[in-house]
C-alpha cells in the first residue's frame, strides 16, 4: 500500500510542481498590482471556500461537478489516443436536451429528473458519436471536427431554445419544472451543491474501472497506444474509436445536465461556447489523463475559482485565478512533454550506441 502511494505521488509530481509554479506566478501578479492586500488575498485564494462555512464548500463541489465530467470526457477519449476538445459542444447539446425535457415534459417527481439526466447523456453522446464516426470511417482529424461541432452546437443551441423553450421576456430559456431539478446534496446548507457532485464521483470511478479493469478498456487503451498493434491483434479499432467518442460525449452531455438542472438556471440566447468544455481539457491534463486524476484536478480548479470569488473582498478581480490556471496548464503541459523528450533523447543515444 505504501509503495503504491509512493508510485501515485511519483506520477502526480509534475502536476504538483505545475500547481506550485502557477500559484507563485499568480502571487507575483497580485503583488505587482496591490502589494499591501496581496498576502491576505492570496491566503484567501488558497483557502478557497474552506473558510467560508458550508456554503463555501458546497459551492466548490457544485462548481467541480461539471468540470470533472468534461474532464472525464477529455481523459476518456485520450485513453484511446484521441483529443476531444469538443466537450463544450457535447455539453451544450446535453444541456439543451436536459432543459427540453425539464421544461416541456410532464413526468412524475423522481422520474422526471432521471429522464432529464439520461436525455443529457444522450444529447452529448450523439454529438460525440458524429466526431467518432468521422474519425473512424473517413479518418477526419478529430480536433478539427471537435471544433466545428462546438460551433454548430453553439448556433444550434440558440435556434433550438428560440423555437422550443424560449422565454422571450428574459431572452433566455424557460425555467425547468420543479420535478426536473436535481436534489440538493443536503450536506451543505445555504449552498447550491446538488447531487451532481456525487454523479461526477461515481462517473469518475466508473471510468477508472472501465478503463483499467474491463475488456473494453483494454481494447480502448491498446487502440490508444498503438492503432496498428490493436488492429494486428484483431481488435476492431474503428468500433473502439467510435465507442470511445460516444462515451466521452455522454460524459460531457451529463456535465450539461448537472450544470443546468438547477433551480433558476437558464441559458441565454447570446452566442457563447460553454467554457466548462475547455476547463475539461485543463482538468484532464492536470489529472494526467486518468479519471481519478481528473476528479481531484476538477475539485482543485473549482476550489481555486471559489477562492478567487472570495478574494474580491480584497479588491482583486477573480480573473487572477484564470491566470493561475493558465500558468498551471502551461507548466503541466511542458512537464508532461519534458520527460518524454528526455527519454527520446536517451533512446536515440542508446540506439546509436548499439
Amino acid at each position, binding site marked *: 500500500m505504501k509503495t503504491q502511494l509512493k508510485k501515485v505521488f511519483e506520477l502526480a509530481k509534475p502536476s504538483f510542481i505545475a500547481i506550485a509554479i502557477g500559484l507563485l506566478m499568480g502571487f507575483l501578479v497580485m503583488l505587482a498590482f496591490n502589494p499591501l492586500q496581496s498576502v491576505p488575498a492570496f491566503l484567501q485564494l488558497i483557502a478557497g471556500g474552506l473558510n467560508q462555512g458550508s456554503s463555501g464548500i458546497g459551492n466548490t463541489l457544485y462548481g467541480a461537478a461539471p468540470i470533472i465530467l468534461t474532464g472525464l470526457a477529455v481523459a476518456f477519449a485520450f485513453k484511446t489516443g484521441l483529443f476531444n476538445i469538443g466537450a463544450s459542444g457535447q455539453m451544450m447539446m446535453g444541456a439543451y436536451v436536459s432543459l427540453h425535457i425539464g421544461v416541456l415534459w410532464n413526468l412524475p417527481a423522481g422520474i422526471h429528473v432521471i429522464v432529464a439526466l439520461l436525455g443529457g447523456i444522450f444529447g452529448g453522446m450523439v454529438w460525440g458519436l458524429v466526431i467518432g464516426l468521422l474519425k473512424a470511417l473517413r479518418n477526419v482529424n478529430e480536433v478539427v471536427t471537435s471544433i466545428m461541432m462546438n460551433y454548430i452546437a453553439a448556433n444550434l443551441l440558440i435556434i433550438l431554445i428560440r423555437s422550443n423553450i424560449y422565454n422571450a421576456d428574459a431572452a433566455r430559456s424557460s425555467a425547468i419544472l420543479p420535478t426536473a431539478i436535481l436534489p440538493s446534496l443536503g450536506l451543505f446548507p445555504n449552498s447550491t451543491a446538488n447531487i451532481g457532485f456525487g454523479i461526477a464521483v461515481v462517473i469518475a470511478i466508473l471510468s477508472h474501472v472501465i478503463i483499467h*479493469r*474491463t*475488456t*473494453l478498456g*483494454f*481494447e480502448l*487503451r*491498446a487502440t490508444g*497506444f*498503438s492503432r*496498428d*498493434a*490493436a*488492429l*494486428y*491483434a*484483431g*481488435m*476492431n479499432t474503428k468500433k473502439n474509436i467510435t465507442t470511445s467518442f460516444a462515451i466521452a460525449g455522454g460524459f460531457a452531455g451529463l456535465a450539461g445536465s448537472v450544470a443546468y438542472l438547477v433551480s433558476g438556471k437558464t441559458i441565454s440566447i447570446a452566442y457563447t461556447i460553454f467554457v466548462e468544455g475547455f476547463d475539461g481539457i485543463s482538468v484532464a491534463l492536470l489529472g494526467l489523463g486518468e479519471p481519478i486524476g481528473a476528479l481531484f484536478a476538477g475539485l482543485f480548479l473549482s476550489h481555486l475559482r471559489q477562492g478567487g470569488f472570495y478574494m474580491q473582498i480584497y479588491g482583486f478581480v477573480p480573473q487572477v485565478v484564470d491566470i493561475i490556471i493558465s500558468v498551471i496548464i502551461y507548466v503541466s503541459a511542458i512537464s508532461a512533454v519534458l520527460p518524454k523528450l528526455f527519454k527520446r533523447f*536517451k533512446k536515440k*543515444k*542508446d540506439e*546509436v*550506441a*548499439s
Partner: protein
Amino acid sequence: MNKQTYKIEMLNITKRFGTLTANDHVTLQVYPQEIHAILGENGAGKSTLMSILFGLYVPDEGEIKIDGSKVDIHNPNDANALNIGMVHQHFKLVETFSVLDNIILGVEDTGRFNRINYAHAKEKLIKIIDAYHLNLDLDTRIKDLTVGQQQRVEILKMLYRDADILIFDEPTAVLTPQEIEELMNIMRNFVKEGKTIILITHKLNEIKAVANRVTILRRGQQVGVHDVSKVSTQDMADLMVGRNVSFEVDKKSVQATEKVFEVKELTVLKGTQEVIKKLSLDVYKGEIVGIAGIDGNGQTECVYALTGMLPVKEGQVILNGEDITKDSIRTRYEKGISHIPEDRQKYGVVLDFDLQSNLMIQEYYKHEFQNKNFLKKDKIKTHADALIEQFDIRSEQGATTTVRSMSGGNQQKAIVAREMSKTHDLMIAVQPTRGLDVGAIEYIHGQLLKTRETNKGVLLFSLELDEIMKLSDRILVMYEGEIVGSFNPKTTTQQELGLYMSGAKRGHV
C-alpha cells in the same frame, strides 16, 4: 607503398553512454588501400566506433590518427575535411530529387543569384562514374531507382566529396546476390585506385570474399585482428559470439502430404495499383515454405491480405479447406493462423503495455482471461509467467515489465511465444530474425523448425537468403507481386534465386 604506416589508427578508444560502455579500449588499425572488415553482433560497438571516426560522437578516451598524425574529429564536417565518407545502412536521400540533386545537396557550387552550377558538378561526376564503372544516370529521380542503385548514389556522394576513406555500414543487407557481387567489384576497384575501405558487417562470407583483414568486436571490446586468408569462417563466428556456433540446423524429415493452406489467384490493391497479381501458393502440413524476394515486391501486402489486414480484390485464401478470404483478422486467428509480423514494434506489440498484456492481446476476450467483461488479472499473470518460463523471455520485472524497456530480441521472443503457444495450423513468419543477434536467431530458427515438426505449416517471408535456404523445404521467389519461381533448397543456389529475385529470369508456377 610503406605498409608500416597506417592510414587510420584508432587507439584505445573508449566511449560510455551512462552505465553502458559501448567501446572499451578498442584499437583499430587500417593499412592504406586495404578493405578492413569490422565484425560483431548487434550491440558489439561497431556502429559506435564508426560514429566516432565519422565525428558523430567524441570518444571519452583514446586518440585517432590519420596518416600517422593525431586528429580531432568533433563533427561530420571535420570528418569530411579529412576525406572520410560513410554510406549509412539507411540511405539518406531525398526521394523526389534527381540523383544529381542528391549528390550536390549541401555542397552546391553556386554562381550569381545563388544559381546552382550544374554543369561543373556533372562533369566531375561523369568522370567518377566512368572511372569506377558505377553505371548511373544522373537525371533519374531517386524513387525510380532500385535499392542497389540508390546505394551507388550514396557511394557517389562520398566520392564527389573527395573521400578516400570509405566506411560502409552493413551495405549488403538490402541487396540481391548479384548486386552484392557488383558492390564487391566496385569496392575492389576503389582499393586499386588508392582508397581505403572499412566494411562493417556481420556476414562472414562477405568478409571472406572481399576483405583483407578483419577486426572482431564483442560486447564493446576488441577480441582479435586477423588476416582473412588465415582464419576460417567458423573461427570468426566463434570469436564474434564468444562460444561455439553451429551453422547447421538439425532438420528432421517430415512427411508433407496434407495441404493446410492455399492461396488461389490472389489480387490485392494498394490505392489503385495492383501490388499482388494473381498470386497462388500452397503450404502442406509439416512444411516450411520460404518466400524469397527483394524488399518491396509485395511481400508486405501479401502478408496483410493473408492475415486480413488488407482487403482482397480477387482470389481466395483457404485454410484447412475453408475459405477465409472474407473473415476478419480475429476470425482468422481463431481458425488457426498465427502471425509473426514484419514490424514488431509497430504491429507485434503495444510498446507501452506490460509484457503480460501483450502476451494475451489477441485472446483477452476469451473466457480464460475475462469474466463478464472484467479482466482476470491473476489468470493473465499466470499465463504470462508460464510463457516467460517456457520461452525464456528476459525482462527486468517479469510479467509486469513495460515492453518498451525490453531488448529487441526479447520483444521478438515474446511475440514468438504468443504466436507459438496459441492453437494454430499455419504460422506466417515475416522477417522473424531481423535485427537480432546470433543467439536469438538460433533460438527463433529452432522454434520455427519445432512448429514444422509438430505438423503445422510455416510460411516464411524473409529478405535474408541464408535464412530461407537454411529453413525452407520449398522456396518460392516473389517478384513484383507474383511468384516467379519455385525451387528445392537442396538443388538451387543463391545465384539462381538472385536472378529470379531481380526479375532477370522468370518462370511460371
